[in-house]
C-alpha cells in the first residue's frame, strides 16, 4: 500500500479493503481461539456483554472495585443520627491503626463496649508520633481549659514547636491563641500563614502553598475528631493513657 493510500485509509476515505487488510481465515481462527476458553469471555458472552464488533473476543474491561466507605462517610452517617450504623462502618473499615482506629475506639467508648475498647486502647496508646493525636484532640476541643491538659501532655511527648503553636493558636483563650500564633510564626512562617488564613480566617491573610501538605497532614484528623465529638475522643484518649501512655 502506498503512502497516499495509507493516508486515505487513515482518514476513512478508502472504500474497499486492500487485499492485505483482509484477515486470513487462519488469522481469524487464531484470534478467536486465544480467548475461546477464557471463562471471562464465556461469561461475558452469556451475559450478552461481548462486543460483537471485536473479532478477538477480548473480554470486557473489568470495572475497578468500588472504593469502600471512608471516615467522612461514617461521620456523615453519624451526623445523620445513626450512631450504631456509623460505628459498624468504622469497625469494618478499621485497618489496625491511625484515625480509623481512633474513631472506632471512640465509638466503642461512647457505646460503653469495654470488650472492644480493651482491644483497641493498647493500639492507640502506641500510636506514633504520640503528640499528634493529643494535639489534634486539643485543637478540636471547644473547652480551652480542657484542651490545655492535652497540650501539656503533648509537650511532655516532645511535640515540635510548630505543632504546639498550631494547637495553641486554635485555643478559645485569647492569650493562649496569641502565644500560639507567635510560636507558629517563629517555627514555620508559611504554616502560620496557612493556619491563620484557613483556620482562623484572619482578614488579609493568605494561605501559603508551600505549607499546604504540612497543613493537610494534620488537619484532617483534627476536623474528623471535631465532627465525631472531641469530648468523646478525649475521654477515650484518657482511657488509653491508663493503658499505656498516649
Amino acid at each position, binding site marked *: 500500500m502506498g503512502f497516499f493510500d495509507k493516508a486515505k485509509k487513515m482518514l476513512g476515505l478508502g472504500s474497499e479493503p486492500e487485499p492485505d487488510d483482509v484477515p486470513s481465515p487462519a488469522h481469524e481462527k487464531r484470534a478467536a481461539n486465544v480467548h475461546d476458553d477464557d471463562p471471562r469471555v464465556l461469561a461475558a458472552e452469556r451475559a450478552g456483554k461481548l462486543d460483537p464488533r471485536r473479532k478477538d473476543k477480548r473480554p470486557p474491561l473489568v470495572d475497578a472495585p468500588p472504593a469502600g466507605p471512608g471516615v467522612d462517610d461514617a461521620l456523615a452517617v453519624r451526623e445523620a443520627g445513626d450512631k450504631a450504623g456509623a460505628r459498624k462502618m468504622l469497625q469494618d473499615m478499621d485497618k489496625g491503626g491511625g484515625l480509623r482506629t481512633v474513631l472506632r475506639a471512640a465509638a466503642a467508648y461512647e457505646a460503653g463496649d469495654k470488650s472492644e475498647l480493651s482491644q483497641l486502647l493498647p493500639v492507640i496508646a502506641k500510636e506514633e508520633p504520640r503528640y499528634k493525636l493529643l494535639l489534634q484532640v486539643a485543637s478540636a476541643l471547644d473547652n480551652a481549659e480542657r484542651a490545655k491538659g492535652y497540650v501539656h501532655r503533648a509537650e511532655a511527648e516532645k511535640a515540635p514547636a510548630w505543632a504546639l503553636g498550631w494547637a495553641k493558636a486554635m485555643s478559645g483563650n485569647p492569650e493562649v491563641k496569641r502565644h500560639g500564633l507567635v510560636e507558629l510564626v517563629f517555627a514555620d512562617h508559611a504554616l502560620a500563614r496557612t493556619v491563620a488564613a484557613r483556620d482562623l480566617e484572619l482578614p*488579609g491573610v493568605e494561605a501559603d502553598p508551600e505549607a499546604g501538605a504540612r497543613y493537610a497532614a494534620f488537619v484532617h484528623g483534627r476536623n474528623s475528631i471535631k465532627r465525631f465529638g472531641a469530648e468523646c475522643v478525649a475521654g477515650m484518649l484518657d482511657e488509653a493513657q491508663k493503658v499505656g501512655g498516649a
Partner: protein
Amino acid sequence: MRSTLSLYAMDRPALQAFSKDLRALLMADNRAELANLLELRGALAERLNEAERAIDWFLKPDTNTEAAPLFSSLRRIAKKRALTLSWTSPEASLEGRLRQYDLLREDPQIASRIDKLLNPSRLPWFLVLPGAACGWIDSVGRIELAGLLRPIRASLPPELVAFAEALAEVDGDVIAHDSL
C-alpha cells in the same frame, strides 16, 4: 530587574538577641515597645494598633500594601542590628552558576555547602522574602567552602571566582541574600 547576590557578615548573637526581643514583644502584644524596636513613627506606629494582635500584621503577605512597610522596617532593623554588607556581585548569573555549574555540583562537599548557603528555611522568618535567594552558613562552613573553591579557581567562570574570593574575606558567619 533581578537582584544580585550579596554576602553579609552575620553577628549571630546579635541576631539571636533581636529575634528574642521581637518574640517577647509579640508574645506580650506590647505594641508601643514593638514600635520602638522597629523604629516606627507616626502613622506606621499607629498602624500596629489597627490589628487585633500585633502578630497579625506579620501573617499578611509581604506584598500587602499596609503590611509591606512593617516588614521593611523589621528587615531594616534586623540588618542594622546584626548584618554587615561585605560584598555584592555585579553578576545576575551568580545564583544560577552556584546552583548549576557542573564542577560545583559534581563535588558533594562543595554542593552541600552551597545548598546550605542558599537554603532560606535556615534563616529567621523575618529575613526571608518570597522568591528570594537566601540562606546562611557558619564560619567553619564558610572557610571550608572557600578552601574547596580555591584549588579549582582556574576552572571557574569569573563570577564564581569573585564569589570565592569574597567568601574567603568575610568575617565569621555569612548570610547570602539577593533581596535585603
